[in-house]
């Protein structure tokens, strides 16, 4: 969170002084358990370390001078919460492209625009979590 970079399995292995295989297995278990989401084409990397996205998304979050990407509105605001409760999320309306901003200060939503829409029922969120 401090560096805004997400470690790969080998980087995690080096940091924790475990083998690469152990780290990859841990990543696999975290993915299977729906704790995190692995990159579909590379099981040594996370795609989502919720609420963070490891790739740029339409949900850019600014907190304490650092930028992060959320996986969706929920996760974008989750980053603000996790990082102390003050920050802003910027995105754009998927229909018209207009920029929409949500601002949180001291855990209070002080500026809001738009409505949040869920296409997928909760029971199916993990059918394809990247799409969800």
């Amino acid at each position, binding site marked *: 969170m401090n560096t805004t970079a997400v470690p790969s399995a080998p980087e995690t292995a080096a940091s924790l002084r475990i083998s690469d295989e152990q780290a990859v297995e841990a990543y696999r278990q975290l993915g299977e358990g729906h704790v995190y989401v692995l990159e579909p084409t590379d099981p040594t990397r996370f795609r989502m370390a919720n609420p963070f996205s490891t790739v740029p998304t339409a949900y850019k979050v600014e907190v304490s001078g650092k930028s992060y990407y959320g996986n*969706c509105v*929920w996760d974008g605001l989750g980053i603000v919460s996790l990082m102390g409760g003050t920050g802003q999320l910027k995105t754009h309306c998927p*229909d018209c492209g207009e920029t929409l901003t949500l601002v949180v200060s001291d855990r209070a939503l002080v500026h809001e625009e738009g*409505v949040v829409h*869920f296409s997928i*029922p909760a029971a199916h969120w993990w059918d394809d979590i990247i799409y969800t």
Partner: protein
Amino acid sequence: MLLFRSGEHVERSGKPAGAFMTAGQAWRLADIWYRDRADPNWQRRTVEEAEDVFANLGLVGDFWKLRRPPTMPAATGMDPKR
């Protein structure tokens, strides 16, 4: 889970009816859900605990059930025309 300008913009986009929540509900949900996520003692919520979080935010109905038959439920939540 997308942020649209309004319900009319959702309709124009061709998205399924789905469900809506206000930005305020989304913030409260996010704050409850993620505030303690970096705590070393964090534990994932059970299905029942997660559904309680939804219900306490007014997110009720089949759409917000984490276990359900594989059919698309009717839209719930706030008025999509808002």
